[in-house]
């Protein structure tokens, strides 16, 4: 089920004066079951990149392979692909349209050609998975709070039972509590279902605690790609491209410089806490 990107280039508005490259020579391997954070500054090409993965955008050059098959080949079933590679866009307002939340979540499975019963079953399951309260099921999606809209949007894609779930900035515009809720939810989804998850964000803080791998984009290129601790080790370069390592990294660095014998590779709050407790015991 792996997704493979092979020297992908993409140019917006090709053959006009506004032409400019959004992706430059991107090669990536997304194996099964990984939880990945895709980080980059505004305009670095994150959204463009993920739209290649479910065939919404066709690369200007290079290939995108799913299960070893080129998805842009003639005759490839893109509709089936989009059910397997679920993509939740940044703004839930772009996809919610039905009179009530439950119907809206049914939209995806119905498009897959499932019978009504089965579609509803999946919708119910998906809404439960995202922790959506029964009492809101038959409310208009437009009356919900930002965090709840986002849950419905995620459920709308989950209901298709994708093998890969891609979320474009699912925490944008939420307060800290709402952010933590959504991130916790995504992390739980990964643990429970074992599907591949790609979480797009421009904040390291958001992803550091959860993901197994971080891909850093900068002006259309993949700048770093590796485990969080490997990526955060480049914190100076990260700062140069408008990002920063999580605060924990800085605290540990400074403790080390101040002469305490802590492991500066601690990346999550939990690890850092344990390190510090260990040293001060």
């Amino acid at each position, binding site marked *: 089920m792996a997704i493979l990107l092979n020297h992908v280039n993409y140019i917006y508005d090709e053959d006009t004066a506004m032409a400019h490259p959004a992706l430059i020579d991107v090669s990536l391997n997304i194996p099964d079951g990984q939880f990945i954070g895709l980080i980059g500054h505004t305009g670095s090409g994150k959204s463009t990149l993920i739209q290649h993965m479910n065939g919404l955008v066709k690369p200007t050059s290079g290939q995108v392979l799913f299960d070893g098959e080129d998805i842009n080949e003639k005759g490839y079933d893109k509709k089936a692909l989009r059910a397997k590679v679920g993509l939740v866009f940044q703004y839930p307002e772009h996809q919610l349209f039905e009179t009530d939340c439950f119907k809206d979540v049914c939209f995806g499975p119905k498009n897959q050609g499932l019978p009504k019963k089965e579609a509803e079953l999946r919708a119910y399951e998906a809404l439960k998975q995202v922790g959506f309260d029964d009492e809101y099921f038959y409310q208009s999606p437009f009356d919900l709070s930002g965090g709840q809209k986002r849950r419905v949007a995620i459920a709308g894609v989950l209901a*298709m039972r994708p093998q890969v779930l891609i979320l474009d900035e699912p925490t944008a515009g939420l307060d800290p509590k709402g952010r933590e809720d959504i991130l916790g939810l995504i992390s739980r989804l990964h643990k429970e279902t074992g599907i591949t998850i790609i979480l797009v964000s421009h904040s390291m803080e958001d992803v550091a605690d959860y993901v197994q791998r971080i891909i850093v984009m900068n002006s259309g290129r993949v700048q770093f790609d590796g485990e969080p601790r490997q990526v955060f080790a480049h914190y100076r370069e990260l700062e140069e491209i408008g990002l920063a390592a999580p605060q924990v990294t800085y605290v540990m660095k400074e403790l080390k410089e101040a002469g305490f014998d802590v492991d500066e590779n601690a990346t999550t709050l939990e690890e850092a806490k344990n390190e510090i407790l260990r040293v001060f015991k």
Partner: protein
Amino acid sequence: MLRDITLGQYYRTESVIHKLDPRVKLVATFAFIVSLFLVKNFIGYVIAFLFLALCVKLSNVPPRFIFRGMKAIFFLLILTMVFNLFLTPGDPLVTVWKFKITKEGIRLAFMMGIRLVFLITGSSLMTLTTTPNNLTDGLESLLKPLKKVHVPVHEISMMMSIALRFIPILMEETDKIMKAQMARGADFESGSLMTRARSLVPLLVPLFISAFRRANDLAMAMESRCYRGGEGRTKMKPLIYQSHDYIAYIAILAYLVLIVVFGRILFV
């Protein structure tokens, strides 16, 4: 696919045409359209073509970009030509079943086709080289005399500039919504007419909601900056004619004279 509609889009680049006062361009476009209906003979069309080609050349807009907009009206063009071809009375040349193709019909079909293409090219060139703001400023300034007869000129031009301003935004939004729904398996391109019409609901609902929200926000933003109509309102960048604008006016006049003399009076 939505990007093919170039009518009403601005093409950013440097050129003499871009620099012209919007009033000049509006007058020129109007004069050009009128001239197309004055022309009676082949020479006239050649002159119109040369004038148009010169303007396109001077504008630095790639012709490819202009012709892309033509695709949108291709159907209209063919329809006009077919109607003219078959429904013009006169000398029958060929008779196919009940339809007669007449000499006059062929002539008229050609003329109409050429007129339509020139007309669209001319007006696209104007919108491609003038920012929407400039365009409505120019229009407002040209229509000012109508205020005397209580035509709400300022309001109309404000509405126009807002509408033009929102076209690209709404197009981009449409693109995003389409993608979001396609990611959930929506299909906008196949099926019968009925299913296709129904498949537009998931696109139109979010689009309308967003348009209303934007309109609301905009009204609020304008009000909170004390907008209260055109009365006593001044411009940050008032339109002032430069020397090249006068030269352009002379060129337009010269073109019109040429058209009238060669396209209408001589060689009838």
